[in-house]
């Protein structure tokens, strides 16, 4: 579904991604871990098409299409969803109106008619329950004055509504208390339908106790330096990242 080949990217002349290779198949759950500043959010931004990043080398293929050639909105319409680490507030635009617009834009792209009001509300009700997202937040302005936890839940709620093929979750767990974490993880697990693929970015093992990954990758200094299974996450939890960094330096100095 998603193939990343030797991806290099920079921002403001600074090299951030330095040769990422990653293959994600249908239905898989990938976790990306790594210390702060290693380039996790940058990778998500590049995949989503944020324009302050410049791709200097490499390719990204999504369902056989060249993702890097597409405008951000077209990537979204093709089925790439990014749950933001820091969701922005949009005053004056109601959550509901925003979601309806987004959903219908995506449907129009796929040649589907706009959802009727009744169907839309039905879908909304159903998906709201998934992450225990309060109805009174629906009529409020998008994320405006939402608590950190409400914003994160809203991201997962939108994910459920828009039903993408690939969902990238950027530190959705940070800032969540343990109850909220459980609710959000349950929501994500319910969305695992064997079709959708996930990339979960986190630097805590905690989340991966709820969302069991098929693969765990360690991103460090713009490169994936190790790939393993969920046991790797546990090992990182116990030993930190330093042993990996040392391993890397040893390899590089050979």
């Amino acid at each position, binding site marked *: 579904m998603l193939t990343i080949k030797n991806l290099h990217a920079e921002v403001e002349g600074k090299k951030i991604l330095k040769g990422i290779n990653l293959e994600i198949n249908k239905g898989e759950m990938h976790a990306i871990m790594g210390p702060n500043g290693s380039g996790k959010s940058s990778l998500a931004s590049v995949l989503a098409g944020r324009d*302050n990043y410049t791709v200097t080398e490499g390719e990204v293929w999504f369902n056989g299409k060249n993702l890097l050639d597409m405008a951000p909105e077209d990537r*979204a319409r093709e089925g790439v969803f990014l749950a933001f680490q820091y*969701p*922005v507030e949009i005053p*004056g635009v109601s959550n509901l109106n925003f979601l309806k617009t987004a959903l219908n834009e995506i449907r129009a792209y796929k040649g589907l008619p706009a959802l009727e009001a009744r169907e839309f509300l039905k879908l909304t009700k159903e998906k709201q329950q998934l992450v225990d997202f309060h109805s009174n937040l629906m009529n409020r302005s998008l994320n405006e004055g939402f608590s950190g936890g409400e914003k994160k839940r809203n991201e997962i709620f939108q994910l459920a509504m*828009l039903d993408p093929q690939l969902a990238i979750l950027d530190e959705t767990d940070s800032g969540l208390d343990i109850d909220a974490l459980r609710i959000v993880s349950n929501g994500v697990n319910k969305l695992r339908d064997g079709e959708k693929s996930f990339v979960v970015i986190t630097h805590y093992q905690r989340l991966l106790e709820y969302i069991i990954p098929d693969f765990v990758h360690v991103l460090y200094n713009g490169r994936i330096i190790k790939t393993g299974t969920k046991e790797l996450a546990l090992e990182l939890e116990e030993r930190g990242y330093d042993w990996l960094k040392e391993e890397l330096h040893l390899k590089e100095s050979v």
Partner: protein
Amino acid sequence: MINSNEIIDDIANKEYEFGFSTDIEMDMAPPGLNEDIIRFISAKKNEPEWLLEWRLKGFAAFKKMEFPKWQHFEMPELDLQALSYYAAPKKKVQLNSLDEVDPELLATFAKLGIPLNEQKALTGVAVDAVFDSVSVATTFKGKLKEMGVIFCSFGEAVQEHPDLVKKYLGSVVPHTDNIFAALNAAVFSDGSFVYIPKGVRCPMELSTYFRINAQNTGQFERTLIIADDNSYVSYLEGCTAPMRDENQLHAAVVELVAMEHAEIKYSTVQNWYPGDKDGKGGIYNFVTKRGICKGTASKISWTQVETGSAITWKYPSVILQGDHSEGEFYSVAVVRNKQIADTGTKIHHIGKGTKSRIISKGISAGRGDNSYRGLVSVGPRADNARNFTQCDSLLIGNQCGSHTFPYIESRNKTAMIEHEATTSKIGEDQIFYLNQRGIDSEKTVALIVNGYVKEVLNQLPMEFAVEAQKLLSITLEGSVG
């Protein structure tokens, strides 16, 4: 070959030799502003002596005045002697079908959802029987007449209802008010006149049905609306279709008079030609609009959506003279490219318990420059006067400007005046967030802007609000990346 301008010049010069003040046959006055021209205009319109005198007083005042200097923009060079102050209503060039119309204009019509027949009427294509604005107008005039409502052109009112015109003309915006009002008094062309008799609630939005006919009223329009005791009227001015006009300067005057318990709602959607990317060739929209709440518990409400013109310079105002009278001002002003808006309102609280509400939403994109300028004054008699002002600015991009100049003058300790102001910016991260949800940048801006102006558009009659909303998105097209 001799071109038509030469012919006109030729004729004009000839007429000049003989003095044109009595020549009613001439279609266009030679350029220049002087007493003869004013006499000529007045004679052409068959006006009574008192009106000619009033015009001449306006001209005398005009001659003593200078252009203001306090505005937040550089005053363009205006050569008022180079203008021609009278042109007979021109027949538009008749086209045979919409195929002959500028496709760009048609594309805009389509985006605005303007019905086909109306498009034809607007562009001068012969209209078929289904949409006969003249007959529609006549039908409604009949209905209005039954109720005693007078709704006609200003010129007609001068002929048919001279006493009403004489009583109220210049009573709200005197001929000495400001240089453009003085100019208008001297040379005003035509406009609308409305009188709502006591106790009558005007059953329709005035001018909706007339917006096509009402177009060629010229650059010095004059409108007078009087709502007698316990009456109500909602008046719509303007048109969301792009308005082009060779006349660069528009100096209209609008006067509103609300008697006891009367209410006037005046809505404007202004979409005059804004000029090219550098603002060249756009309209200067220098309008004086003022209403007086003469009677107890009367109400005047201005709503404006200003998207066009190279320079928009106006302060629709309300004088709250009657006790417990109310004034409102709702405004959306959009500037892009090199457009300039210096607009706002003045509310004068004179009577006891008077209330006012000001909601201003400025939107600046491109290299546009948007100023809100407002005055709330409370006189010594205005016990318990209240004002609420909300003044918001929205910026799109880094090159635009936005300024607020709120003035408050209170001479009564019991007055309560509240002022809130915000400035926000449509940020790249907001645009990217919505892009990432499948919404393109144009739609994103439209979505954010619509949310931002909702409170003002809600004041407009439904169909007008829908058009205004579309107009805003069209105006802001291409304003982001």
